[in-house]
């Protein structure tokens, strides 16, 4: 049995010695390099492009502008959550007439080296007529605001609603009401490796593309349709990648441009995004506002919620369609049994980089809003915020529980969970009962100490299906072809672990193939915390079947009863007579003789998403003088149904937490009023370093296995991120005994904390002893 063991990763040895193969490491003879020329303006008309000086530079092979693209080229379509009415807001690979964000591609230069291509980019003359830009949601919605997409009659290009019960009546009858505004700043996934592509045309008219990693089978179809060619002519090959987090592997303008140009110049072309490009060009996320009213009674029972949400989606609709706004709304109700709610979400376009999903899309934002709100209710009533949560939880006997919202093509139906139990475990672990004493003691010593909670429900295991092919080859080695993608999270180890568990072999005996569209014919890739609960299950079920067949082969060979047989790393053997064994090569040969196929193809159809849940708790100190926030303790308790490899699960949770911490305290893609990005380097866009990240205590529980799959697993990729904004905001608010309207916007910077310290001190509501 290796399921449940924290085995070491099979990916690591090559990565540790510098033998990883990332896209920029792909070497082929005659490789040209591309540089994408981007609009410096947020909103402008292109009056003309003069490429003569750029083309004249020695080493320049091609200068490609929109006029060089096919006249019937279609825009990049939506992959997830498509809404047909948004077709007019899709992005073309190169802007031909109007640019709508600073960073929008207007040309591509291909040269012998990146150095020469960048020289040429400086010589490309693009004449623009500037238009007024809108960057802010409020400004974009004004009647006199410049319209981004004239075919759509408003900058509010889409709205959706979810309703349960009569929220209007519930709010009217509620003994207490709170009305609050919330905001989450624009920030992004920012993996440490930027995007990149290497496109290699061959003599037979095929094109081999390294670099697209995540949903290669989807993207191959998109590329074929944009190139107007047979998908069989396109071969995608996944490389190692430096982190995914939702942004990598979506279909971006370059995913068309680089293969298109490589085909035209009949030479391999490499494009590696630089960091400033990345911050301007790769999907942004998170920016949204909420205006809400909650009704409750004096026991803290939540009676109704009305929330109007505006999502700043940037200049275009990209491949994620309206996934982020939809998931915001779908998961906003969280773990609570709301009698009534009415949620309305608007999608607003502005002259900023387009948005897509980023780890815990919509849940990071919605959890911040909801959990800050619950603590505001508790503060208003002078109640323990954990008690208010407990009083409103959906009970395990109410599961499956229909929330009344809809996301990713499914009604949200929570499959299993014991929310009270995990909250109790977390409270004990954090010594919550003693916290008031710690807080008072800290005050006496001149510190502001606070604890904040955030309960979350995540979604995972999005289907509709995943496939695996597991077998034993003639040479006696095992293979697994999976439709999943490896984005650095340990997919290979996970699959090998599930397979080895069934076959009695060592994980490193399994050769994994994924993301190569010539070898793996179909798959849905890795996103939405789906890997383990879909592709993992497919591989596990296939391995189980393979085990059965291997045992039949061994029965034949040994003429023994199945109960007397066991499988080990070397092969099957007879229990009790260790000399009676066969090697794997022998098994493969014998199977051929007796006509047993040792190649199992399994498709697993996920009936419904599955919903893991948990709680974050943060204990912080806030400095009186500087507002500096230091995290003294941080706990994440998370029920993942079943942890296949606890080390990997904890790794996901801790890494996710620090990304959430960046969004809570540091990171912001700030813009000026003209639509210029102000944080385009790592000196302005602050990722958490080892000095901001705390040691994170993690408790994994397995109380509520999923009802939807044979292992009971739920996804673990996002819950580490989901609750961080909320827990830290609540902790800072608690440290200051701040009112409900405080800390309702992220990020929380020292100056935010300091401003509230000053304000509350002036009102004599915060006394320094």
């Amino acid at each position, binding site marked *: 049995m290796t399921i449940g063991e924290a085995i070491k990763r099979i990916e690591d040895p090559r990565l*540790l010695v510098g033998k990883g193969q990332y896209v920029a490491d792909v070497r082929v003879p005659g490789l040209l390099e591309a540089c994408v020329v981007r609009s410096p303006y947020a909103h402008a008309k292109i009056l003309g492009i003069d490429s003569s000086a750029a083309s004249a530079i020695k080493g320049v092979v091609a200068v490609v502008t929109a006029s060089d693209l096919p006249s019937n080229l279609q825009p990049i379509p939506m992959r997830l959550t498509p809404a047909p009415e948004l077709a007019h807001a899709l992005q073309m690979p190169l802007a031909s007439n109007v640019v709508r964000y600073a960073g929008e591609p207007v040309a591509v230069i291909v040269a012998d080296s990146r150095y020469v291509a960048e020289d040429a980019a400086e010589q490309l003359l693009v004449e623009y007529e500037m238009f007024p830009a809108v960057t802010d949601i409020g400004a974009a919605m004004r009647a006199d605001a410049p319209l981004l997409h004239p075919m759509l009659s408003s900058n509010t290009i889409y709205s959706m609603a979810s309703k349960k019960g009569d929220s209007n009546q519930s709010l009217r009858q509620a003994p207490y009401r709170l009305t609050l505004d919330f905001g989450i700043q624009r920030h992004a996934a920012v993996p*440490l490796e930027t995007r990149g592509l290497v496109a290699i045309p061959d003599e037979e008219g095929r094109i081999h593309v390294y670099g697209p990693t995540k949903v290669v089978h989807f993207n191959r179809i998109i590329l074929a349709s944009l190139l107007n060619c047979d998908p069989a002519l396109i071969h995608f090959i996944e490389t190692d990648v430096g982190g995914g987090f939702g942004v990598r592997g979506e279909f971006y303008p370059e995913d068309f441009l680089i293969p298109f140009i490589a085909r035209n110049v009949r030479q391999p072309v490499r494009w590696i995004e630089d960091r400033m490009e990345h911050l301007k060009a790769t999907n942004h996320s998170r920016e949204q506002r909420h205006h809400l009213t909650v009704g409750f009674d004096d026991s803290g029972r939540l009676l109704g919620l009305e929330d109007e949400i505006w999502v700043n989606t940037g200049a275009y609709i990209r491949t994620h369609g309206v996934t982020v706004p939809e998931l915001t709304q779908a998961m906003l109700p969280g773990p609570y049994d709301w009698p009534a709610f009415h949620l309305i979400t608007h999608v607003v376009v502005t002259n900023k980089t387009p948005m897509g999903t980023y780890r815990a899309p919509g849940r990071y934002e919605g959890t911040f809003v909801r959990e800050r709100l619950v603590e505001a209710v508790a503060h208003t009533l002078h109640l323990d915020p954990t008690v208010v949560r407990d009083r409103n939880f959906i009970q395990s006997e109410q599961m499956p529980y229909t929330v009344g919202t809809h996301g990713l093509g499914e009604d949200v139906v929570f499959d299993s969970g014991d929310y009270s139990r995990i909250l109790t475990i977390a409270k004990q672990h954090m010594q919550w009962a003693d916290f008031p004493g710690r807080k008072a003691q800290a005050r006496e010593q001149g510190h502001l100490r606070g604890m904040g909670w955030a309960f979350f429900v995540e979604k995972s295991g999005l289907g509709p299906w995943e496939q695996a092919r597991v077998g034993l080859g003639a040479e006696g080695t095992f293979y697994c072809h999976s439709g999943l993608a490896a984005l650095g*999270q340990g997919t290979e180890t996970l699959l090998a672990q599930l397979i080895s568990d069934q076959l009695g072999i060592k994980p490193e005996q399994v050769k994994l193939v994924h993301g190569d569209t010539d070898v793996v014919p179909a798959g849905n890739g890795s996103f939405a915390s789906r890997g383990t609960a879909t592709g993992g299950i497919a591989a596990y079920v296939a391995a189980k079947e393979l085990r059965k067949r291997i045992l039949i082969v061994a029965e034949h060979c040994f003429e023994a009863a199945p109960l007397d047989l066991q499988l080990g790393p070397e092969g099957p053997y007879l229990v009790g007579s260790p000399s009676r064994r066969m090697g794997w090569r022998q098994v493969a040969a014998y199977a051929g003789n007796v006509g047993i196929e040792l190649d199992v193809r399994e498709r697993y159809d996920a009936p419904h998403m599955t919903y893991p849940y948990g709680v974050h708790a943060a204990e912080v100190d806030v400095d009186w003088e500087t507002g500096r926030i230091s995290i003294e303790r941080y706990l994440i308790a998370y029920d993942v149904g079943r942890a296949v490899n606890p080390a990997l699960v904890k790794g996901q949770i801790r890494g996710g937490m620090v990304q959430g911490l960046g969004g809570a305290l540091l990171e912001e893609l700030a813009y000026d009023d003209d639509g210029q990005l102000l944080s385009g380097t790592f000196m302005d866009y602050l*990722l958490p370093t080892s000095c901001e990240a705390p040691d994170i205590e993690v408790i994994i529980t397995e109380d509520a296995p999923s009802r939807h799959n044979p292992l009971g697993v739920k996804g673990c990729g996002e819950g580490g991120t989901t609750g961080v904004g909320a827990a830290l905001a609540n902790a800072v608010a608690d440290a200051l005994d701040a009112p409900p309207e405080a800390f309702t916007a992220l990020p929380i910077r020292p100056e935010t904390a300091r401003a509230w310290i000053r304000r509350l001190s002036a009102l004599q509501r915060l006394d320094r002893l």
Partner: protein
Amino acid sequence: MEFQTISYELKVNGKTYRVDDVEPRMLLADVLRDVLGLTGTHLGCEHGVCGACTVLLAGLPARSCLMLGIGAQGKEITTVEGLAPDEEHLSALQEAFWEEHGLQCGFCTSGILTTMTWFLKQNPTPTRAEIREALSGNLCRCTGYQNIVTAVERAAANMKAASE
């Protein structure tokens, strides 16, 4: 805007390499990766913040994205490919990263390993806080740093035990 090309030699991981006919402006990172094929050195930001491209130059950590290849002439360069004692074994630090799940995507790992190799020579018995301080010039987006700190701690303990 044409450049004369130049040729020079670099000493990397104990070997001498010829770098022929490159532009003088070529960065050390690009020379290592694109000319010498040592692609274990990674570029994460190209402006000296993320630390992924860190190599050891005459024993000291240096950002290979912030210096020219020719500037490294005559100095011993160590890249991630040069940290393990041989093809079959990992260094004590690499081994500890494997044991402690100190990496996920592996992209930042090269620069962290070179930096921490230097750091453990300076401070063979560091505290967690000292490790965090020494790591703070290297960004990691996957791990949350905690397992990296633990791995460095473990490597220090193992190296100490091995030398006693």
